[in-house]
C-alpha cells in the first residue's frame, strides 16, 4: 500500500530544511505567461484561477443584490419592474450558491492548500483538476447566456411546475448547473484520492490537519449528492424538452417529488458550503491562539457526522409542501440532530481559545465574526426545524435572514479568514493590516444591519421574494438596504488593499504567523513542486508546545526533483522513527 498506513516501523534519515526567506524560484516565476496559466496542471495556479472566477461571480451576484436592496428602499415600486425583480433574485441566488459558495473554499483555497498540507507535489489527478476548471467555465458560459437571453425567474430552487412553464431561459441555467456539477464531482473525487494516497511520510490520519478532515467530509458529500442534482436537472430539462411528465401535475406527475430530488442535493450542498469553512476556522484559531486545538478528534469526526446526518434532513425545506405528516415529523427530528455535531465544533473552538495567547490579526478577527454570526444562523435553523414555528416562518424574511447568517456569516466570513490567512503564502505579499481591520469592521456592521432586521420583519410576516411591501416594514427594509451598502463598501475596501498588496505590499516571510502547519514550511510563495524536499512529519499540525525545528524536517536524500534545492539545509542529520 502506498499510503502512510504502514504498520511496520521504518527508520527514515531526515534533516532540517528551513524554508528560504528569499526564494529564487517560485511557482509564479518558473512558468510565466498567460498560456502557461491557462494550460497549467499546477494545483496552485488552478486554485488561483478558481479564486479569480469566483471573485468575478461574487461581484456579479453582489451587484444584483445591491440592485434588489435598492428596489426595496421604498414600499412601492422604486425603479425596477416586478418581473425584473424576480429575475434578479433568481440569478443572485443561483450565482451565489452554484458559482460562488460551492466552489469557493474547496476549489479555490482548497486546491491551493490541500496538497501543501499533505506534503504532496500535486493532487492525484492534475489534468482532471484543470478539466474541472474548464468545465466550471463552460457551465458559467451557459449561465451568462441565460442572463443576456431572457433571464431566469424561477428562484434558484427551480421548483416545478412553474419551471416547466416559465418563459425564461430555464434550460440554459439548468444545463449550466448540470455541467458545473461535474466540475464539483471531479474536485471531490480528486481530493478523496489525494488524501488517501498522497500523504507525505509520517502524516497519519491522526496528524491530518483539520482543514483536510473538513475537505474530506466535503468531498464525500460532493460525490454522493451532486450526481442526484445532475439527474434532477437533466429530468427537468427533459421535462421542458419532451414534457416527460414525471414532475408535472398536469400529466399526473408529482411536483413534490422534484422537491425531494432537489433538496436531496441542496441540503447536503449547504454543508458542501459550510464544512470547508469549519476547516479554515480550525486552522486559524489554533495559529492565533498558539495552542493545540481542543478536541482534535471531536472536530474531525463531527465533520463526518455532519456529512452523514446532512443527508437525512432535506425534507425540512418541504414542511409546507404537502409532504406526508410522517415524513415531516421525522425530518423535523433529524434536523435537530444536525445541530449536535455543529455545536460540538463551536464548543471546541471556544475551548481552544481558553488560556491561549490570542493575537488579534485580521484572520482571527474574522474567526470571531464567524463564531458570532454562524451561531445565530445555526440557532435560527433549529427554530425553523421545529414544525409549528416553521409553518409561520416558512417563505418569510426569517428564512432569508437564517440562510444569510449561515452562508454569508458562516461560509463567506470563513473564506475571508482563509483568504487573509493564506494570502501571504499564495502571493508572497503582506496586505495592510490596519485597512484589513477596517474592512472587517465594515463587513461586520454592514452584515448585521442588513440581516438582523430581516429576522424581525420575517417573524412579523414579511414574505420573501416580493418587490414591494406594506408600510409597516419600511423601517426594517430601509435599515437593511443601508446596511447592504456598507457591506458593499467593505468588500470594495478589501478588494482594494488586496490588489494594492500585490504591487506594493511588503514581502511576506515564509511563516508570518508562526504556524506549525506544513504549508507554512514552504517558501512564500511556494516552489513549483511545493517543497523541494520530501517533508517528513513527526508532530501533529497543532503541536505549538514543540519547537519549530521539529516541523521543518525532510528526507535527507531529497533533491531529485530535477532542480537543485535552493534552500539551505541547516541542522545536523537526525534520525526519525516514523510509525
Amino acid at each position, binding site marked *: *500500500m502506498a499510503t502512510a498506513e504502514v504498520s511496520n516501523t521504518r527508520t527514515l534519515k531526515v534533516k532540517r530544511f528551513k524554508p528560504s526567506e528569499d526564494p529564487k524560484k517560485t511557482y509564479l516565476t518558473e512558468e510565466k505567461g498567460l498560456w502557461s496559466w491557462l494550460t497549467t496542471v499546477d494545483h496552485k495556479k488552478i486554485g488561483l484561477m478558481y479564486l479569480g472566477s469566483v471573485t468575478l461571480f461574487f461581484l456579479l451576484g453582489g451587484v444584483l443584490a445591491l440592485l434588489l436592496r435598492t428596489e426595496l428602499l421604498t414600499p412601492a415600486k422604486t425603479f425596477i419592474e416586478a418581473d425584473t425583480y424576480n429575475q434578479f433574485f433568481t440569478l443572485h441566488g443561483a450565482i451565489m450558491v452554484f458559482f460562488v459558495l460551492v466552489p469557493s473554499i474547496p476549489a479555490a483555497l482548497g486546491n491551493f492548500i490541500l496538497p501543501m498540507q499533505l506534503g504532496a507535489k500535486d493532487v492525484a489527478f492534475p489534468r482532471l483538476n484543470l478539466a474541472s476548471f474548464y468545465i466550471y467555465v463552460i457551465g458559467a458560459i451557459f449561465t451568462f447566456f441565460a442572463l443576456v437571453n431572457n433571464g431566469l425567474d424561477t428562484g434558484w430552487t427551480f421548483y416545478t411546475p412553474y419551471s416547466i412553464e416559465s418563459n425564461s431561459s430555464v434550460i440554459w441555467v439548468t444545463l449550466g448547473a448540470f455541467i458545473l456539477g461535474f466540475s464539483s464531482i471531479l474536485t471531490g473525487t480528486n481530493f478523496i484520492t489525494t488524501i488517501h494516497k498522497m500523504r507525505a511520510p509520517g502524516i497519519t490520519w491522526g496528524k491530518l490537519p483539520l482543514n483536510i478532515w473538513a475537505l474530506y467530509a466535503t468531498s464525500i458529500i460532493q460525490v454522493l449528492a451532486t450526481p442526484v442534482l445532475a439527474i434532477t436537472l437533466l429530468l427537468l430539462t427533459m421535462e421542458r424538452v419532451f414534457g416527460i411528465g414525471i414532475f408535472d401535475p398536469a400529466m399526473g406527475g408529482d411536483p413534490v*417529488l422534484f422537491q425531494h430530488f432537489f433538496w436531496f442535493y441542496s441540503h447536503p450542498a449547504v454543508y458542501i458550503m459550510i464544512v470547508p469553512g469549519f476547516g479554515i476556522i480550525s486552522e486559524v484559531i489554533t495559529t492565533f491562539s498558539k495552542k493545540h486545538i481542543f478536541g482534535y478528534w471531536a472536530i474531525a469526526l463531527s465533520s463526518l457526522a455532519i456529512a452523514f446526518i446532512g443527508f437525512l434532513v432535506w425534507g425540512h425545506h418541504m414542511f409546507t409542501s404537502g409532504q406526508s*405528516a410522517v415524513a415531516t415529523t421525522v425530518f423535523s427530528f433529524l434536523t435537530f440532530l444536525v445541530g449536535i455535531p455543529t455545536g460540538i465544533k463551536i464548543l471546541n473552538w471556544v475551548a481552544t481559545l481558553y488560556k491561549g495567547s490570542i493575537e488579534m490579526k485580521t484572520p482571527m478577527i474574522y474567526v470571531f465574526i464567524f463564531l458570532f454570526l454562524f451561531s445565530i444562523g445555526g440557532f435560527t435553523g433549529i427554530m425553523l426545524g421545529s414544525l409549528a414555528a416553521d409553518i409561520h416562518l416558512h417563505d418569510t424574511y426569517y428564512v432569508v435572514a437564517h440562510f444569510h447568517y449561515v452562508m454569508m456569516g458562516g461560509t463567506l466570513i470563513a473564506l475571508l479568514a482563509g483568504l487573509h490567512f493564506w494570502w501571504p503564502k499564495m502571493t508572497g505579499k503582506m496586505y495592510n493590516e490596519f485597512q484589513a481591520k477596517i474592512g472587517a469592521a465594515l463587513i461586520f456592521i454592514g452584515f448585521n444591519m442588513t440581516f438582523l432586521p430581516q429576522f424581525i420583519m420575517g417573524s412579523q410576516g414579511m414574505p420573501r421574494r416580493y418587490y414591494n411591501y406594506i408600510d409597516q416594514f419600511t423601517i426594517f427594509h430601509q435599515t437593511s438596504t443601508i446596511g447592504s451598502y456598507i457591506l458593499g463598501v467593505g468588500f470594495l475596501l478589501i478588494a482594494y488593499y488586496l490588489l494594492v498588496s500585490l504591487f506594493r505590499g511588503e514581502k511576506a516571510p515564509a511563516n508570518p504567523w508562526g504556524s506549525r502547519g506544513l504549508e507554512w514550511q514552504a517558501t512564500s510563495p511556494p516552489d513549483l513542486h511545493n517543497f523541494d524536499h520530501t517533508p517528513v512529519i513527526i508532530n501533529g499540525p497543532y503541536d505549538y508546545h514543540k519547537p519549530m525545528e521539529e516541523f521543518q524536517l525532510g528526507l535527507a536524500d531529497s533533491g531529485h526533483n530535477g532542480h537543485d534545492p535552493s534552500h539551505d539545509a541547516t541542522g545536523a542529520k537526525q534520525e526519525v522513527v516514523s510509525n
Partner: protein
Amino acid sequence: MSGQNHEHHHHVSTAGQLWAIATGLIILTIVTVVVAKFVPIPAPFDVVAAISIALVKAFLVAAFFMNLYWDTKFNAMLLIMGVAFFLLMVLITLLDTMFRNDIVPSF
C-alpha cells in the same frame, strides 16, 4: 517501498474462473426469466425474487469481475456506501410518498 514487485497485490484471475462467473451469470439470467414468466409468485414477492437474483448477479460481477474480492476493503466499502446512500434516498422519500393523506379527497 519499492515499486518493482507488482505481482504481490495485483490479482490475476484464471480464465477458468472468469468463464465460470460468466456462466453463473447467464444461468441466473435464465432463472430470473423463468421465475418471472412461469412461476406464479404473489404480488410483492415476485419483485423480491427478481431483485434477490439480481443482487446475487451484482455480487458476482462486483466481487470477481471487478476484483473487489481481492482488492483493498476500502474500494468495496465505497461501493457499499454508494448503495447505502441510494437506499436512504429511496426509503426517506417513500416515507412521504407512501403516507400522504389526500387533502382534497378524490383529487
